[in-house]
């Protein structure tokens, strides 16, 4: 992998430049670099898709790595380092970008409720004519649609569909049950599709309201 080579050469440079000081400190630094830096690609892409621009993504990564290095002794070797780094970054992200605070420890019952509501509310749903949504769709339209999703849904879509993480991994990153990963992802993708539908409509590939695209009754079982 390209990134690995990049890191290796940079680490070599690092070693050459470094004056030998305290051995333990050096060990710590080396350990950190070897363990934490390889996850930068994953973290950077998440940061980039969450913030929507390079500058903020870089900022977030820098802050995350500084904090991670500073609190490296809190990391238990052998445990999931990616999840540990991800949580640090998530906290930094929330601190920076969250508009309103939520009460701590409040369980997201709203979300569970909402899930069933969208499942019930199928007005927009289900037509093979919706296939047109996916024709001629551009990269920046998908990115814009993604940007419109609420944070908790965007998070799972990015992790699953862009970064290719398993549900188990996502559950660990976010400290939520796998069932919640499933429902958030289903709902997130659906919301995204709704956005793409709007684009397609604007461009004239699809006419009318979502309701017009309901499936034929005779096809129903």
């Amino acid at each position, binding site marked *: 992998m390209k*990134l690995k080579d*990049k890191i290796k050469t*940079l*680490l070599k440079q*690092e070693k050459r430049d470094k004056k030998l*000081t*305290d051995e333990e*400190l050096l060990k710590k*630094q080396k350990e950190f*670099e070897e363990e934490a830096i390889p996850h*930068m690609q994953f973290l*950077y*892409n998440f940061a980039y898709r969450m913030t929507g621009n390079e500058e903020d993504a*870089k*900022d977030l990564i820098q*802050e995350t*790595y*500084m904090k991670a*290095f*500073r*609190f490296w002794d809190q990391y238990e070797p052998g445990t999931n380092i990616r999840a540990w780094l991800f949580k*640090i970054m998530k*906290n*930094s992200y*929330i*601190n*920076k970008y*969250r*508009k309103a*605070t939520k*009460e*701590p420890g409040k369980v997201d019952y709203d979300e569970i409720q909402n899930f069933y509501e969208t499942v019930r509310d*199928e007005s927009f749903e*289900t*037509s*093979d004519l*919706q*296939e047109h949504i*996916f024709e001629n769709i551009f*990269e920046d339209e*998908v*990115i814009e649609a*993604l940007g419109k999703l609420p944070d908790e849904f965007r998070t799972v879509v990015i992790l*699953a*569909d*862009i*970064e290719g993480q*398993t*549900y188990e991994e996502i559950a660990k990153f976010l400290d939520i049950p796998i069932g919640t990963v499933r*429902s958030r*992802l*289903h709902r997130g*993708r*659906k919301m995204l*599709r709704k956005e*793409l539908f709007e684009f397609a409509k604007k461009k004239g590939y699809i006419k009318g309201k979502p309701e017009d695209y309901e*499936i034929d009754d005779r*096809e*129903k*079982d």
Partner: protein
Amino acid sequence: MDCKQTREFLSALVDNEEIDSQTKQKLEEHIWRCATCRTEFELEKKTKQTIQSKVKIIPVPNELITTVLTQIKLLQNGYATSPKNSQISNPSPKPWLEIAFSLGVVIITLAVAIFFISIYEHKMNQKEIIAKEVSGLINHFDSIAQGLAKPEILSDDPEYVKNEVVSKASFMPMIMKIPEFKIIGASIKDPHSSSKNSKCVNLIYRNNDKLIFFHQAPLKTAQLHEDVKKRILKGEWIYDTIGDDSFVIWGTNELVCCAISNMRKEELEKVLKQSW
């Protein structure tokens, strides 16, 4: 299995995630029979494919890796010796910041002490409680603004200040970006100096003659009046003015924050709304 139950597992089916064989069989049966769910399944699959094919993984910029490695090294040096780079990045401290930092510490400790004694003795109304809550900080802020106190960390290089703060703080501080303002200094009260509760980080932002003093402490250890705590946990931002200074208290899940400024209350509110 009905449509509702099916939808709950639809994403897992799309992603080929593990589902126990009995559930999976029922799901497939339902999808085979129900055209609506079948279409829904196909559409979700298409959505996923669209995201995958359109949104690509971006390579990490080279200079980001270099920056991070350099910052780690800076942090490392900060541990090993007192930073050499302070000479480079701290060329000419502003005259108003020159004088005794210790005086500020004395003032703040006294103010905080007085406040804690008094707060449990008297019942005060909310406004007074809040005023008491921030009075120590305001004193500290005033002494810095008037040049009577000097923060521990001072530099023209915001990156240097950030590094120092992260390397010395005893908790994960939040480094807020404020448009048009630059971080020029910071102080970290030494946790060993008094009680365990003195963990905090103060960042000083400046834009010409405008100053913002941004104080933060972990919620768990912060000694805060219960009423105030309740209010900020609800997400409230408490703005007010004392003397010439305006201030605001708010909280996150982990931190209690307080910003003090020599700007007017409305202006402070506007600036913070842009950056939060």
